[in-house]
């Protein structure tokens, strides 16, 4: 605890000479520049792929003729390809880039093993490409978030082991014995993915459980992939960025332990709530509902910590690009988790079950929370990693508003439209096509949202390529770039 206090008391830049710190940080950045940049490149590539697929998916929902002549572009293939590209492509690359960089920076020491990280990154992306192509080819499995064909799974798993080991080694070689909440979440995410992916692969494909129990395992995995892998990576980023970019310690940091363990505990079964009413043992779904309600505890702590910290320096939120993203992510996290909790209520599920409601909540959680947190962190990492300023801040500004608006629109369309659709589907005997006509507006709205989001992503890609290719200015070559704005960079 003493050391954690040190961590925060040292936030005030006057305590330590800026120069030596900057020097050390640059050494750390240099030690992993190539590999982390590789992950970020992968994430931008996959984000573009996912936004294109997402657009196709949403157009197909209200215009079924669109691309329907091509057998490998049928809705049933593009839909899982979209979600898998989004999660295994974009969010894993972006999340691992953030987590690797954060763990190394918090460790306070240059990290070796760059080639391990770089090779694993390449392997991971090849595995994801194989997986997506497998879906298009027709080898998908029917389990949510496990659609990648079975032959892609070993590659995916093996390359994740490489990525995970790098993160563990970076943690192990840290200079300070203390650890910060970001590091806990980073480690937890790595451990959890290895564990849940093994369980899912073994219990569904290697030694398949009987009948419907495969669906139970898949629901468990799907919930955990989001709650125990993607969310911890995003939380690690938020815990890191708020103190670093805002210069504001996490208010109520002492409660982080409670939030951490209760989040892991309740998330680990919350995904089962989606099995309510189906041909599954009823008590398993009840465990899921109870666990979802348990999420109130960590949600409360997170909301208090993040919102208090952000509001403590409210005026800076809009001036600092990374923090703006993190603010959006925090709000999206609170809304999405609340919707998860209330959506698991039996009464609500009676209306929303099997509708787009769940997709909307998932979209908000993955894209609005995790995606925005990662994008904000990457905007923090890039200038430091490359020792260049963001070449065009208005473009990055525009990207934030456009992406934010796109995510908001898609979420509203899917959540509200899903509720309207589900209430009619589960609560009346109206003709299914009439119900569809009734909710057509929302499906159309989600296409508008997906297009807006795609424009934002395009701006992101342009920003990213711009900063990669632009030559360093004289000022940037002098390597004192970050020091010029001390309020934006605080030592460890």
């Amino acid at each position, binding site marked *: 605890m003493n050391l954690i206090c040190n961590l925060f008391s040292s936030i005030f830049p006057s305590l330590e000479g800026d120069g030596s710190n900057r020097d050390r940080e640059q050494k750390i950045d240099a030690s992993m520049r190539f590999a982390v940049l590789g992950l970020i490149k992968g994430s931008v590539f996959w984000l573009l792929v996912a936004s294109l697929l997402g657009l196709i998916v949403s157009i*197909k929902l209200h215009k079924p003729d669109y691309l329907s002549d091509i057998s490998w572009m049928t*809705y049933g293939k593009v839909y899982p390809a979209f979600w898998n590209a989004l999660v295994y492509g974009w969010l894993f690359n972006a999340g691992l880039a953030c987590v690797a960089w954060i763990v190394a920076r918090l460790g306070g020491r240059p990290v070796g093993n760059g080639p391990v990280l770089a090779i694993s990154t390449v392997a991971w992306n090849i595995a994801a490409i194989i997986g997506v192509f497998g879906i298009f080819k027709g080898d998908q499995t029917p389990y949510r978030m496990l659609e990648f064909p079975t032959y892609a799974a070993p590659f995916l798993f093996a390359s994740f082991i490489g990525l995970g080991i790098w993160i563990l080694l970076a943690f192990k070689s840290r200079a300070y014995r203390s650890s910060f909440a970001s590091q806990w979440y980073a*480690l937890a995410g790595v451990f959890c993915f290895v564990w849940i992916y093994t369980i899912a692969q073994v219990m569904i494909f290697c030694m398949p*459980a009987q009948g419907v129990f495969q669906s139970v395992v898949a629901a468990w995995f799907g919930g955990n992939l989001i709650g125990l892998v993607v969310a911890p990576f995003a939380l690690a980023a938020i815990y890191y960025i708020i103190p670093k970019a805002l210069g504001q310690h996490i208010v109520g940091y002492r409660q982080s332990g409670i939030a951490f363990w209760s989040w892991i*505990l309740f998330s680990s079964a919350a995904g089962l709530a989606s099995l309510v009413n189906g041909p599954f043992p009823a008590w398993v779904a009840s465990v899921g509902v109870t666990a979802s309600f348990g999420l109130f505890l960590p949600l409360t702590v997170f909301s208090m910590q993040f919102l208090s910290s952000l509001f403590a320096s409210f005026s800076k939120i809009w001036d600092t690009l990374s923090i703006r993203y993190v603010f959006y992510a925090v709000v999206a996290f609170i809304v999405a988790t609340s919707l998860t909790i209330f959506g698991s209520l039996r009464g609500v599920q009676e209306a929303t079950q099997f509708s787009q409601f769940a997709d909307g909540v998932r979209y908000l959680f993955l894209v609005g929370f995790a995606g925005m947190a990662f994008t904000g962190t990457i905007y923090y990492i890039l200038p430091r990693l490359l020792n260049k300023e963001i070449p065009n801040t208005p473009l990055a500004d525009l990207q934030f508003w456009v992406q934010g608006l796109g995510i908001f629109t898609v979420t509203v369309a899917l959540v509200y439209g899903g509720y309207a659709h589900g209430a009619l589907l589960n609560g009346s005997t109206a003709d299914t096509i009439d119900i569809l006509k009734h909710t057509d507006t929302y*499906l159309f709205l989600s296409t508008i949202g997906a297009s807006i989001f795609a424009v934002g992503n395009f701006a992101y890609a342009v920003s990213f390529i711009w900063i990669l290719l632009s030559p360093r200015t004289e000022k940037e070559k002098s390597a004192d770039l970050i020091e010029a704005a001390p309020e934006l960079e605080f030592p460890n």
Partner: protein
Amino acid sequence: MNRGPFIFIGVLIIVSLSWAVTLVKPIQEAGNLSPIGKGEDRIPTRLTGLAEQGREVYQELGCVNCHTQQTLALVGTDVERGWGSRQSMPIDYIDQKVVFTGTNRVGPDLANVGNRRTEADWHYRHFYNPEITSPGSNMPSFAFLFEKREIVGEGSNRALALPEAYAVEEGYEVVPTRKAEALVAYMLGLSQAYEIEEAPAPEKLAFK
């Protein structure tokens, strides 16, 4: 919390606990069901060979992303809609190597589609272009499962009888491929229309 192993063990214990309680325990309790009866009366009924191939087509095309295969009788209006007469039970799925319980209902539930749509012809036309049988549907056309070919001699007896608005030009016919035939056989075979004593059905539920 300052050491990696502590976090590792903590997370391992929690996730393993969740795994043991919510996955291992129910599978041990109820994950080893055997079919009831033999031959014609066997529950669940078996699919034919062609229908089994249709299952693979169903998986390949990702039909599960829009269609569930589970009837709910405890809540909702599945029974009123005629999508089934009772709650789907784990035993209905024990023959299935891969299950398509699904999570989304963009389209209707298919657990009993073989009972309510009994004509193969309807399915063929529906797959060729859903607008023919269900105007306004947002199901995509699966015309790529059909072959348009020149009529030689008398023409095939498997050729689709298309309404005028969707007919192909004179001298040509639309014939289902092997995949379409398998898929339709699967659709016709999808049924849970046998009695299971413990399955909840509306008439058995006093509170409904």
